[in-house]
């Protein structure tokens, strides 16, 4: 029995708490020691599967240590439609806030990436699937407005299933609101880099996510407008292998580059300094 097998058999005894020490890769099913996974940018060392990152971990992975100042963290959804399906929207919000990741599905703030000032927006998928309602739209808009004021770049790390149904038409309008803000940013000749991670779909994909001056995507990420199931039901055909993956979008000329997570920060630095016109 090799050393790693011994450790693994030991690990099976604590499998009831897998998130603490061991994780199973969703793609190759390999069991990975979580410390090792973390050291490897939360990418499977065996198959390169990119695990989903929390907003905080994402910010940490991209910005210089202690350079991040969070903004607008006190904005919260108010359930203006009094929406109720099987659960009340109010209760869903409350439960999501209680789980402690954030007050809504995005964290925004200012920081340094290399020597560059950036406004960074990172989606938190654990908050209602990263869905976009009024708070997400407002926080992104404010980040863009701060960038205009401080003459800095905007980076959005997308990780969202799309618009938040529980805010009805108001969530749809966030698409127009953010696109309009980006139009202003462009008029000020300030850069916006969009990063697409798994998943980037629906109303998020059909607004700011696809409007980057540069659009980068993580390997294997699902990216698209319509959900795969909806498409299948509509056309009554099976979808081709690799449909709506980052690589598929690259093949069709829809994004600039598929970037491995461990190269992402370097790539962003390179782009930002090229855009700034100096090295």
């Amino acid at each position, binding site marked *: 029995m090799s050393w790693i097998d011994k450790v693994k058999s030991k690990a099976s005894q604590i499998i009831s708490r897998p998130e603490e020490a061991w994780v199973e890769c969703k793609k190759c099913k390999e069991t990975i020691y979580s410390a090792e996974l973390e050291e490897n940018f939360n990418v499977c060392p065996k198959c390169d599967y990119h695990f989903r990152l929390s907003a905080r971990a994402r910010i940490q992975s991209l910005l210089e240590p202690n350079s991040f100042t969070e903004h607008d963290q006190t904005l919260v959804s108010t359930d203006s439609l009094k929406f109720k399906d099987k659960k009340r929207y109010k209760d869903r919000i409350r439960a999501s806030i209680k789980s402690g990741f954030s007050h809504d599905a995005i964290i925004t703030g200012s920081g340094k990436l290399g020597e560059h000032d950036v406004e960074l927006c990172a989606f938190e998928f654990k908050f209602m699937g990263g869905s976009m309602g009024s708070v997400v739209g407002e926080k992104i808009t404010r980040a863009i407005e701060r960038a205009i004021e401080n003459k800095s770049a905007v980076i959005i790390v997308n990780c969202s299933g799309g618009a938040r149904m529980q*805010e009805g038409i108001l969530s749809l309008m966030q698409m127009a609101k953010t*696109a309009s803000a980006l139009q202003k940013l462009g008029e000020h000749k300030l850069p916006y880099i969009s990063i697409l991670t798994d998943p980037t779909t629906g109303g998020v*994909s059909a607004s700011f996510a*696809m409007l980057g001056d540069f659009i980068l995507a993580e390997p294997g990420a699902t990216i698209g407008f319509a959900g795969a199931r909806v498409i299948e039901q509509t056309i009554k055909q099976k979808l081709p292998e690799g449909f709506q993956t980052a690589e598929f979008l690259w093949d069709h000329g829809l994004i600039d580059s598929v970037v491995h997570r461990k190269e992402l920060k370097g790539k962003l630095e390179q782009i930002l300094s090229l855009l700034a016109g100096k090295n």
Partner: protein
Amino acid sequence: MVQILEFEREIFAVENQIRELVSLSHMYDSVGDITHEIGKLKKKLRRMKLDIFSNLNGWQKTQVARHPERPHTMDYVDGIFTDFCEQHGDRHGGFGPSIVGGIARLAGQTVMVMGHQKGRTTEEKLRRNFGMAQPEDYRKAQRLMNFAEKFRFPIVTLIDTPGAYPGIDAEEKGQSEAIAKNLMVMSQLKVPIIVVVIGEGGSGGALAIGVGDRVMMLEHSVYSVISPEGCASILWAKKDKVVQAADALCLTAKNLKELNVIDQIVHEPLGGAHRNHKRAIILLRKALKGQLNELLTIPVDKLLEQRAEKFRNMGIFGDITQESQV
């Protein structure tokens, strides 16, 4: 064959009664009594229509908005505008049959008019892809908008779509990018833009031609982030919850006016636009003229400022620091 919605049955029954009495009155001499009876029934019919159509729920409105007999974009284009000169294609290899557009005259003024066209006959529905636009449709719309800006023509867009087309080729050609780009371009296009939801406002596929200085909705049209069917199957995991879903989504013209998402509700003829195209066209023409005359008096820079402000303010949220201070 005329499609009768469930809540219209009573209305059609009374209409039949009236029709029978009218034909009787032609055959018999006791016209006095029958005329009196017809008058009573007509009054009853009017009250009934008023009562039913002013109390439609979200799902009933959705059915009216989707009614196959409802006036479509081309009905309004033909009825309201003159000299419509259709413009084709996105100039990048795409035809774009689901959105029709071109220059035309509205009360003497040249304007660009465009809208989703669902199609009336089976053949036309297929050709138009049921009004479900593909990237080339949106790029064609964008081309026409830039054209309008170049020649300083105001733009009128008419929205009537179940949603953007969900298909393999649509994704390959960049459905998301096509929609997103339109939102961006429309937000600062240097001519007045009037948007009217005439039937079904299906999510991003509708909004892609829906950013403007004035957004109006016909009285029985709907506008939503997702269809009631889609919402029911995702949030309730049950398709038969469409009635609840439609109400929860707040998708009626009245809902959207209260949420400050639209500026004006355009009245429809009693009983819905599908029962009286001619009257629906007159009512929309009047509303369009009113908005256009107002917008033409606003200088362009002011107009753009107001448009940016309008969409900047979309959304409702709270701030817990402020709440705790209060």
